[in-house]
């Protein structure tokens, strides 16, 4: 399964577009792999968002507990200390209503469904690319 989420990724969304929004979008990237962190951060920054990084689910939860706010959370599934499923569950139980999108290497339907059931708005299989980011940010803009 390629993804579960907002709709079809189309060829018209291949080019990187800066989403025209009046409001600055704040994004939290939750990812333990430094290479993926770097790529995802550069991609989201290119789309005009303000990006912060967390190396695992626990760091993400602690950021929210300390009062931080993010419009969008992009989270990996497998991370040390606290994985994406547990982090998503905790964030939702804390009352976090921000958009949470899973980005995972896992592609089995059952694995993605389990991740979705934790409280995601959508889930995509890696790699994150311009098309997927465009769909996510457009969905965020429409909320």
């Amino acid at each position, binding site marked *: 399964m390629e993804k579960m989420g907002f709709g079809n990724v189309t060829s018209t969304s291949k080019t990187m577009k800066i989403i025209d929004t009046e409001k600055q979008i704040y994004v939290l990237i939750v990812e333990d*792999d430094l290479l993926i962190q770097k*790529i995802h951060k*550069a991609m989201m920054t*290119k789309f005009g968002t303000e990006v912060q990084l967390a190396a695992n689910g626990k760091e993400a939860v602690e950021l929210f507990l300390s009062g931080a706010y993010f419009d969008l959370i992009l989270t990996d599934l497998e991370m040390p200390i606290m994985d994406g499923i547990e982090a998503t569950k905790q964030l939702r139980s804390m009352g976090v209503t921000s958009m949470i999108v899973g980005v995972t*290497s896992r592609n089995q339907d059952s694995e993605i469904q389990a991740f979705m059931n934790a409280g995601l708005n959508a889930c995509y299989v*890696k*790699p*994150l*690319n*311009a098309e997927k980011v465009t769909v996510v940010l457009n969905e965020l803009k429409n909320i």
Partner: protein
Amino acid sequence: MDVGQLQRQFIDYTASLFREGFLDDQFTQLRKLQDENNPDFVFEVVSLFFDDSEKLVNNMAKALEQPIVEFEQVDAHVHQFKGSSSSIGAHRVKNVCAAFRGFCEQQNSDGLEQQIIAAGGSIPMVE
């Protein structure tokens, strides 16, 4: 050899990497992320990928040389390698990783060793 020739060679070489399936569109997207605010982005991510790859392939090889091979451990390394290779656009590496995982599921050591060598790694000899 002048700069123009070198530039043309570089362009031709890069094109061949796409043509032969070493690289895919994901790499093109990464190149678009390089700009004046991030002038060394491609070099940095490719360097990170090569460092990670070396560690992962060596870890896989060592795991395969254990008296009792823990295929789940090998699979974990392959899974990570597949994630990073697909994120950087290393198309052939990603496909090799997919094949790897099949062998891990079958617990096929010989198949895995062949894939490691095909990917540029080596199997440490146990004396």
